[in-house]
């Protein structure tokens, strides 16, 4: 077990600066998720930790060792790849034993560890099969098992679930969580799927264009995104954004935009004081909108026209037109709404997000 420290890490390929000054500390036993759109530098960062990519500048520390110059084999890590990377010419058993054989473990110890890992993953009956005889889910388990037997200091996961179908993905997600709870090995997990990030991570790193946007516990990121990108990236359906002008009307702060006219309560108005007279981006999560029968008491509601109704069973997603813009509202399944209905949507001022239009940072 070990912590991983990444200090001022940079990676450039010729002209492309793929990773820019990343600083991270992954604590011992922590499950850290790196999430972001493709090309954001998350996989490159992971591969530098693994030693598969050279470091342009900066340091990577695993445990107490600076590993910058160490080949992957000496870093005491295990990695699970997106395409599983099972050795096609070896049986499941040999796949799992390979790393131990390379490290010259004694035969009985190899056997003990392989069987232990197979037991954890429920693949004891597959040990003699070849990878091509396995289903996608089984291959995934073998790939995990190959990492587990090693008892490494750190697990690295490179989008390990993205080749599975939706149902299996959910199942394996739960299983991964359980395995991590049981083994407690430090883990770095790269994904582009924000649900995986939210459910698996002890903490989550959101990256974009090679830059860390925010680091924190999943709910903190969700509730208090540091900038517009993080706000929009986490959450499904995604946060609604609208450009509004902040004005001071008799000491109260108002947000005025396309079809929106919101009188903000004093404590929020206080926070936005420095931006009075400017345009800002207003962010509202779909689940923070509710259908109001009449005019809302606090004056925080607006009119909307329903364009699409998506009934998901547990909730209803309403695509609505507000002024000339559109928004999505996630509402109770009991709400009766039809296309072209005129509704009033109310919101909770505590749950509103404001972002500077230029820097996109949260206000």
């Amino acid at each position: 077990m070990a912590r991983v420290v990444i200090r001022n890490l940079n990676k450039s390929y010729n002209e492309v600066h793929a990773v820019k000054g990343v600083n991270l500390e992954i604590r011992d036993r922590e499950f850290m998720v790196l999430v972001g759109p493709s090309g954001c530098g998350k996989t490159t960062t992971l591969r530098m930790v693994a030693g598969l990519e050279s470091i342009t500048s900066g340091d990577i520390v695993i445990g107490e060792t600076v590993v910058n110059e160490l080949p992957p084999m000496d870093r005491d890590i295990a990695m699970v790849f997106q395409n599983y990377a099972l050795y096609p010419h070896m049986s499941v058993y040999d796949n799992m034993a390979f790393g131990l054989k390379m490290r010259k473990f004694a035969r009985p110890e190899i056997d003990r560890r392989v069987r232990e890992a197979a037991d954890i993953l429920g693949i004891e009956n597959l040990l003699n099969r070849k990878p091509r005889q396995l289903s996608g889910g089984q291959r995934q388990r073998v790939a995990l098992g190959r990492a587990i037997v090693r008892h490494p200091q750190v697990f690295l996961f490179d989008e390990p679930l993205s080749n599975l179908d939706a149902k299996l993905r959910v199942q394996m997600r739960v299983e991964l969580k359980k395995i991590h709870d049981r083994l407690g090995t430090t883990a770095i997990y790269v994904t582009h799927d924000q649900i995986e990030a939210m459910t698996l991570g002890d903490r989550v790193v959101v990256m974009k264009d090679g830059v860390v946007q925010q680091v924190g516990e999943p709910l903190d990121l969700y509730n208090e995104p540091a900038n517009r990108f993080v706000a929009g990236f986490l959450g499904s359906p995604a946060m609604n954004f609208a450009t509004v002008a902040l004005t001071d009307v008799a000491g109260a702060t108002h947000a005025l935009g396309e079809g929106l006219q919101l009188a903000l309560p004093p404590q929020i108005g206080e926070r936005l004081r420095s931006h009075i007279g400017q345009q800002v981006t207003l962010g509202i999560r779909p689940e923070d909108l509710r259908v109001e029968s009449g005019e809302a008491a606090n004056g925080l509601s607006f009119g909307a026209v329903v364009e699409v109704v998506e009934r998901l069973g547990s909730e209803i997603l309403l695509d609505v037109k507000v002024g000339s813009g559109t928004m999505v509202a996630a509402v109770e399944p009991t709400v009766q709404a039809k296309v072209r209905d005129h509704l009033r949507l109310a919101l909770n001022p505590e749950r509103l997000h404001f972002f500077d239009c230029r820097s996109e940072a949260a206000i």
Partner: protein
Amino acid sequence: MIEGAKWRRWVYFYIPLGIFIVWLLFPFYWMLVTSVRPDRELYRPWMAPNYAPFWTTHPTLVHIIDLLTQTLFIRWMANTLFIAIVSTLISLFCGLLAGYALSRLKFPFAGMLGTGIFITYLVPQTLLFIPLANIIRNFNLGDTPWALILTYPTFLIPFCTWLLMGYFKAIPRELEECARIDGATRWKAMLYVIFPIAVPGILSAGIFAFTLSWNEFIYALVFLSSAHEKTVSVGVTSELVRGDVFYWGQLMAGALLGSIPVAFIYSFFVEYYVAGLTGSVKG
């Protein structure tokens, strides 16, 4: 299948294919018939009324026995086999390493070296045989199997490298990366993960290289002089043809027997051979 009437199928398919097959295979049949036909039938004037050239009524093994007992044919076979196997192994070894380096590693001049090897792939043996004969003599390799064992790789290595590069490129990089994380050095990852997966490619390259070295002629003709060092192709050419006299029965028996090892290996690995052939012309 071709749609339409039966006669169309015959005209457009069976008859042309049949002619192709007869044309391509008749010389081998002819080899076989000639090698078991007694001399008195072989040299009977062809206008003779009872002349029946396509088969023989008195098959004989005399040509084959003469070939095996009165010439150095067995020795030539052994020479050829030894030279073909050793030069194939050397070429596979070099081709595996070079193919791996060129397809998987990043290093300066990689592109230049790759192009260089591709160009040597296109150099025909007939371009260099005269200076090469000089060099072989200077190295004191003349008239030894090593003259061929060391020169055959010049056309086999580029071929093996080229073919194996294609196989290596098809293996996902992650396998190797995973092995390296699992504790293997680059060398061991290559040896235990990449090479075993490339076995079909190695077989293809090996079989193809073997047939190429068995088939080689001009180097063997120029570099070897004593009768007992010769390969089959050269031995048959220089020892079974005395002056202007062709011993056709023995010659055909030699051609037949000299083809058997190649045909034998080929018959077991047709698919690999075809993969090698088609892979060798892939860009």
